[in-house]
């Protein structure tokens, strides 16, 4: 295991360094900048946490669907729809009255939105026989379209038709900050809770056991008296709920408005997070934190080294590929056949 990890990291460092050299960049300095830019100061760390929150939430959701063997690629759209419903609720609260209640309602709406979007994909699979990947993908683009249409049309800023987003909410509708480090303790708390809750659900409840059973052998689980299809729908609901919450935080906690890129690709990134974590509840948050560091730290590349910050994505992708490959080889050597990324 340790050996495998070491090998993986070597491969990744090797590849990334090669890429950097290809781009004519100083590898060591680049790595140093990324580390400095993500962990160099408290301010930086708070930014990392800001990214970590939605990433971890989405990952939590994905753990349910991967556990039952579903490839919930639609998580991206679930984040968006969560954001949309949150925006919808918050838009009603222009008058300065009882912001907290409205915020609470907005978060619930967000979760509901995500869940709704997930259930659509779920039923397309169980009833419509559409593979969840294509159902999810399709719905992602539909969700993106919905967001754009709202921003460009019904929710546009007065007199302005710009993709820069809807009008910013009044401050009493922002999730309250800690002064100094600008992150919402509520969001942070809820995210940590979500991780614990997910761990609990998967480990201690019958539902978690059912997910594992159906994911491992649907036929047998069915014969044991479980209801694979209904359980799949439930798993999707959970995934969508967490993804939706991530979307809510993006709106109510980070941007304070709806923007076209509201999901920031965190849904897709979360898929990588969970894969790299080997589908583990406890490892996922750590991987998410690492990925968040890469995302935030890589901003230094253009600022200091005139490099493109997309290097972070390259590193993340390479990591997952290498990890998958190593895992497969190990399985091979143990004559175990190919591991299936939950699919």
């Amino acid at each position, binding site marked *: 295991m340790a050996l495998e990890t070491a090998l993986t990291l070597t491969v990744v460092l090797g590849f990334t360094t090669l890429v950097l050299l290809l781009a004519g960049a100083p590898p060591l300095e680049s790595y140093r900048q990324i580390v400095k*830019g993500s962990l160099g*100061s408290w*301010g*930086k760390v708070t*930014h990392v946490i*800001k*990214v970590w929150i939605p990433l971890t939430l989405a990952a939590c959701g994905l753990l349910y669907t991967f556990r039952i063997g579903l490839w919930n690629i639609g998580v991206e759209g679930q984040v968006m729809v969560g954001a949309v419903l949150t925006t919808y609720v918050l838009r009603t609260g222009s008058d300065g009255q009882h912001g907290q209640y409205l915020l609470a309602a907005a978060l619930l709406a967000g979760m509901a939105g995500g869940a709704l979007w997930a259930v659509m994909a779920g039923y397309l699979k169980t009833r419509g026989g559409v593979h969840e990947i294509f159902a999810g993908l399709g719905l992602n*683009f539909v969700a*993106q379209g919905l967001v*754009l249409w709202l921003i*460009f*049309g019904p929710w*546009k800023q007065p*007199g*302005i*038709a*710009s*993709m*820069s*987003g809807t009008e*910013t909410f009044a401050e009493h509708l922002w999730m309250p900050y800690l002064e100094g480090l*600008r992150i919402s303790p509520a969001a942070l708390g809820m995210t940590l809770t979500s991780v614990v809750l997910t761990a609990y659900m998967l480990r201690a409840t019958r539902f978690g056991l059912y997910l594992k059973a159906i994911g491992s052998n649907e036929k047998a689980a069915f014969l044991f008296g479980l209801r694979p299809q209904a359980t799949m729908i439930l798993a999707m609901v959970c995934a969508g709920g967490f993804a939706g919450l991530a979307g809510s935080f993006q709106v109510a906690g*980070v*941007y*304070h*408005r709806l*923007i*076209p*890129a*509201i*999901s*920031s*690709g*965190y849904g897709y990134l979360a898929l990588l997070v969970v894969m790299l974590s080997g589908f583990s509840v406890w490892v996922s948050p750590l991987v998410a934190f690492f990925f968040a560091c890469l*995302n935030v730290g890589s*901003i230094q590349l*253009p*600022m200091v080294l005139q490099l493109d*910050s997309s290097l972070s994505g390259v590193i993340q992708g390479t990591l997952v590929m290498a990890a998958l490959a190593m895992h497969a080889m190990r399985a091979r050597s143990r004559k175990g056949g190919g591991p299936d990324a939950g699919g």
Partner: protein
Amino acid sequence: GTARAAAKPYTFGLLLVGPYNDRGYSQAHYEGGQYVEKTVPGARMIYIDKVNPADRPGITIPQLVDDMVEKGARLVIANSDDMKDGIREAARQHPDIHFVHVSGDDVLTGKAPKNLVNTFGRMEYGKMMAGFVAALTTRTGKIGYLGPLINEETRRLAGSAYLGARYAWEKVLKKNPKDLTFQVTWIGFWFNIPGVTADPTQVAQNFYNTGFDVVISGIDTTEAVTVAKQKAKEGKQAWAIPYDYVGACEGGSSVCLGVPYFNWGPGYSGLVKKSMTGPWKSEWTWLGPDWQDINNHRTTNVGFMEGDALAPGVKKELKTFIRDLGSKKVQLFKGPLRYQDGTVFLREGEVATDKQVWYMPKLLEGMQGAGSAK
């Protein structure tokens, strides 16, 4: 080099909405910053480009400002309209740092904190010249305007281009304004974001495919020129007028009529000096061209660089036009002017105030295309 060595370094930060090398709006700002580094002793620029949620998902303006301040920036310049909220938030969080929001109007609206300045260039004139040469060049009498998103600024600029075109059409060519088609098509943002905005390449192609032979670009990137070149290769008559950046015509020489551009060097060095020495006070400034020589990069704030495709005759007319604009002999924002919907903008003989021009609420009579998103 020597200058920098002399004085103690003074760092200013630049937030660019697009790529620093977009050969458009952002590059103009970027080179303005470089001009400051060259001319103002001790001035040092740090910049971050592609500051928009599509290119940098999850990154917020205040976050970037924090970073720049950490790197020692004393003055931060944000160059795009849609950074308005972010930069205001950042200015509040760093009261002791100086902020400039280019193209913004927080000072006018009174939302601006004390350390925030608004500035912009009077691009109206550049656009008028663009419209002017477009009208004198078009064979079909159909001019396309590749618009970004719809707001006061973009309406103002599109309107100016139209006024320039109509003046040339009416007063120079002595033709009936009714026969001049001026179509505005908006893509939804300052540059192409696939799947988010309409695709400017497609829009430009459609212009040329539907009988428009001159396209004036209102967006930050140079699709119009590229497509025009394509069409020229196919043996069509096609011309384009890019925007923002003095070098935007390079490589498109065969089809480029010229480019109205920002020259941020002088304006920026003024701001940086002011920030170094103080006093720094919240103000709204609108910087015009140097009418002696609108292409003097040491003095002018906006200019119009003629392109190789510009016919000699048209060049001559343009000179006169510029002279008359400078001498106020020609005033295009002067009544009678009506809006698209027929309502009155300026009464007979009335000359628009800066604010009237700045806050143009609708497109002008005679222009086609959406005037404000329904």
